[in-house]
């Protein structure tokens, strides 16, 4: 795809604060001898539109403004935030965060270097937050009607649109000053089908750090509506999942959530340095099959998990986590990198100004392998094909589960009957060793995902090619 050189989105000042004001606050934050301090300022606008029961039912507009002051002393963090940006309130926040340390003051840089990303990862020609509301209402109606028209069994439809633009300014005691603007859009549809007293629900959507043109060129609202309806339609005739151990094939794209849960979280550096992750002592060790190479890349243009700067002002890098089955790296934020004496990778993220940054994924994916997807399916005599994974959860000990919203039975190398809601369960080291075929068809899943950690939600996306896991436990009815 040909792309024109993209300029970084223009930055508007909503804070009305000078570098010298913030330097004063940083000095106060380090007045009791902290090792490091930073201030995160945020101004964001988000809007949403909801359509159900054939009418545009509601729209909303939300404004968030505030700042958070963080002080680090060794492995301790002091944090305070306020949504009142008056001099007095900023001073109180700085003094509160300072309490984490208790000695004499330490210094703050006198010169602040402006850090600016050269190229914007956001792919925006028509900025959603600056476009007319009517245009977005039209998108919602198109998605809604397309789902409704799919088949008479579709009884209820919901379509929703959301957009946001977040402006951040991060300034720290080492002399960094970084500003960024992060746009986001999302359009989703849900459809409920009904037949013979049975009800099923389907979901589809898309978006990312893109402009409104995405919904005219890349993913049309009609496709979003149709896919949601199609899923709910297929589920009406879906059979109960089998229970027990079977070979499992994961469809490309959305199945990336499996890697997100089973591997990604446990490679976040805070769990590594606290030794609670099963991977803490496995750097350089082989933990999985030769087929598996995993990256986390915040710099992929337009994706939901991407960013120009992380929420500590670090330029992010594509980070190799696992190479041909061997652990090669971790996802770092400043605190963990400092304590582990490792370079920054740009994975310090936060939900908003009221939260301090922690190591997080952005866009994690399994790199493409050598098998054709058909070859992988043909290799299974009796097994389970996961078409859509809706989410999952992992414990530090490596136990995880995934929810399959739509699957298919594999019989004699062919996809046969659709299978409804099932759960996959396993432990990560076991699964990593059992991945024995990885396809050449790498895709990223629906650009609608959010990841939760320690009560903080951040946008993410996951990717993977078609993959085969030799055996996995499926929870279903006997």
């Amino acid at each position, binding site marked *: 795809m040909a792309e024109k050189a993209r300029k970084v989105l223009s930055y508007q000042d909503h804070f009305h604060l000078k570098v010298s004001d913030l330097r004063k606050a940083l000095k106060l934050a380090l007045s009791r001898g902290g090792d490091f301090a930073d201030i995160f300022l945020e101004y964001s606008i988000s809007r949403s539109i909801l359509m159900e029961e054939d*009418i*545009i*039912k*509601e*729209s*909303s*507009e*939300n*404004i*968030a*403004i*505030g700042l958070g002051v963080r002080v680090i002393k060794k*492995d*301790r*963090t*002091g*944090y*305070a*935030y306020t*949504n009142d940006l008056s001099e007095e309130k900023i001073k109180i*926040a700085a003094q*509160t965060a300072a*309490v984490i340390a208790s000695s004499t003051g330490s210094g703050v840089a006198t010169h602040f270097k402006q850090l600016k990303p050269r190229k914007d990862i956001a792919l925006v020609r028509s900025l959603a937050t600056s476009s007319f*509301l009517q245009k977005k*209402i039209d998108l919602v109606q198109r998605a809604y009607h397309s789902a409704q028209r799919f088949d008479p069994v579709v*009884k*209820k439809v*919901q379509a929703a649109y959301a957009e946001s633009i977040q402006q951040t300014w991060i300034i720290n005691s080492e002399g960094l000053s970084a500003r960024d603007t992060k746009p986001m859009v999302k359009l989703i549809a849900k459809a*409920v089908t009904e037949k013979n007293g*049975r009800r*099923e*629900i389907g979901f589809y959507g898309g978006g990312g750090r893109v402009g409104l043109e995405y919904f005219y060129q890349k993913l049309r609202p009609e496709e979003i509506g149709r896919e949601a309806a199609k899923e709910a339609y297929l589920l009406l005739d879906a059979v109960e*999942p089998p*229970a*027990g*151990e079977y070979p499992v094939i994961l469809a490309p794209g959305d199945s990336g959530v499996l890697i997100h849960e089973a591997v990604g979280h446990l490679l976040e550096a805070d769990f590594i340095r*606290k*030794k609670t992750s*099963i991977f803490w002592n496995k750097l350089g060790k082989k933990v999985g099959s030769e087929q598996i190479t995993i990256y986390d890349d915040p710099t992929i243009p337009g994706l939901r998990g991407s960013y120009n700067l992380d929420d500590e002002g670090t330029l992010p890098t594509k980070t190799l986590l696992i190479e041909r089955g061997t652990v090669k790296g971790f996802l770092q934020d400043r605190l963990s990198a400092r304590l582990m004496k490792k370079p920054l990778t740009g994975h310090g993220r936060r939900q908003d100004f009221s939260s*301090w940054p922690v190591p997080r994924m952005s866009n994690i994916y399994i790199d493409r392998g050598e098998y054709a997807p058909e070859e992988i399916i043909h290799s299974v005599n009796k097994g389970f094909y996961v078409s859509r994974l809706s*989410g*999952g*959860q992992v*414990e*530090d*000990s*490596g*136990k*995880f*589960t995934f*929810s399959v919203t739509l699957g298919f039975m594999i019989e004699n190398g062919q996809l046969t009957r659709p299978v409804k*809601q099932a*759960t996959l*369960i396993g432990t990560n*080291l076991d699964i990593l060793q059992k991945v024995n075929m990885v396809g050449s068809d790498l895709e990223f899943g629906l650009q609608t995902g959010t990841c939760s950690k320690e009560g903080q939600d951040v946008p993410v996306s996951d990717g993977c090619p078609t993959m085969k896991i030799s055996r996995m*436990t499926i*929870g*279903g*009815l*006997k």
Partner: protein
Amino acid sequence: MKAEKNSDNLRPLAERLIGYGKKQGADEIEVTLYDGIEFNVDVRLSKIENLVEAGSKFCAIRVLKDKRLASASSSDLSISVLQTLIRNAIKRALLTHPDECAGLPAPALFKVDDASLKLYDPEVARTRPQEKIKLALTTEKIALEDKRITNSFGSSFVNHVLKTVLSNSSGFAGEYIQSYCSLSIGLQAGQGDNLVEDYWFSSRRHFRDLSSPEEVARKAVSRTVRQLKPKKIRTQNVPVIFEPTMTSWLLAFLFSCVSGVAVYQKTTFLADRLGDSIGNELISVVDDGLLPARLGSRPFDAEGVPTQRTVVVEKGVLKNYLCNTYAARKLNLVSTGNGNGSNVVPNNFYLAPGTANPEEIIKSTKEGLLLTRTIGHGLNPVTGDISRGASGLWVEDGEIVYPVSEITIAGNLGEILKNVEMVGSDLEFESSICGPTIKVAEMTVAGV
């Protein structure tokens, strides 16, 4: 920081915004202002890891124009910003479609006295940070004295104080202040690649009602170490005993299925089932916003509708859906005081306790699973289907014999409610959704 003093100006601000909205042409307008303080300390391995103290305010607005709804919110409380949001909302409302059911609730006939609910304990904010930090440190210290515990995720003390001021153009004006505090700890046990983890917590509105560090630590330790050396089991259908935390999880799913919003949207298998028998006669479920000092109590919901006691299921019969004003109008019912914008939320939503004590329930089981944890999602309100990763303790001849892990449980909420054989007497109000131990006659437990 004292929320109750700083927020004296919230009431006049709310009234001023309502006047402004009406002048700009809104038919109806509702303004909610929140003023809160937060304290949070996380300690790990005997040291403070994170310490947070903060105060914040928030404003939420809903306007209606010609039966068309628009909403807005802001953490910037400057009058010019809020006035702009109101003007924008009125303009946006005109671009949406009229909806006969939209609108503020009719003025209430009575008012709940918030003092009787005992929602606020001044001790929560008054207690010195050092004392709160010490509670967290002590909890962890006691837990780590047990040599079977090999790592700590940390212990936390958290508290909030929140003042809510709600006014609308139909003449409602109410406010209340509430407090919350909690003490929690997460632990890990085991060696090498065979690790297990669990946590425990106590959360209350009143500081003196919190469990002691000893109780929280002891419970967290026993919940963690009982999972050590798990076995895998083969796939089978057996009785499943739900611990109170697991019953709460099941009830949270039931809540989403009796939500009036899900009912009018037809996204629940319990739609159009009022008056039907949906469970056996051991099942009685109540939502009650009026229980003194409980976490889910409040004098009025987010629309200013007084809260009440609502019987949702009585001896197996579905009696009421839980509604906000909009869902109630859609369904020709009355709001149950569970409103939260366009959603509904539980007040205190609980399964009424039975007579069996939890030990008796285990003793009554020849072979089965005592469910202690589930992970993952796998709940589908449209069908009532449940499919979750799980772990628990295996029961044989009325005794717990060993832990089991890497299993999944599958079933259907409708079936489960009909197959509950025993309901325990051990109801505790640790969260706004809760229930006692229950035993379900049969579910599919998938293993190897």
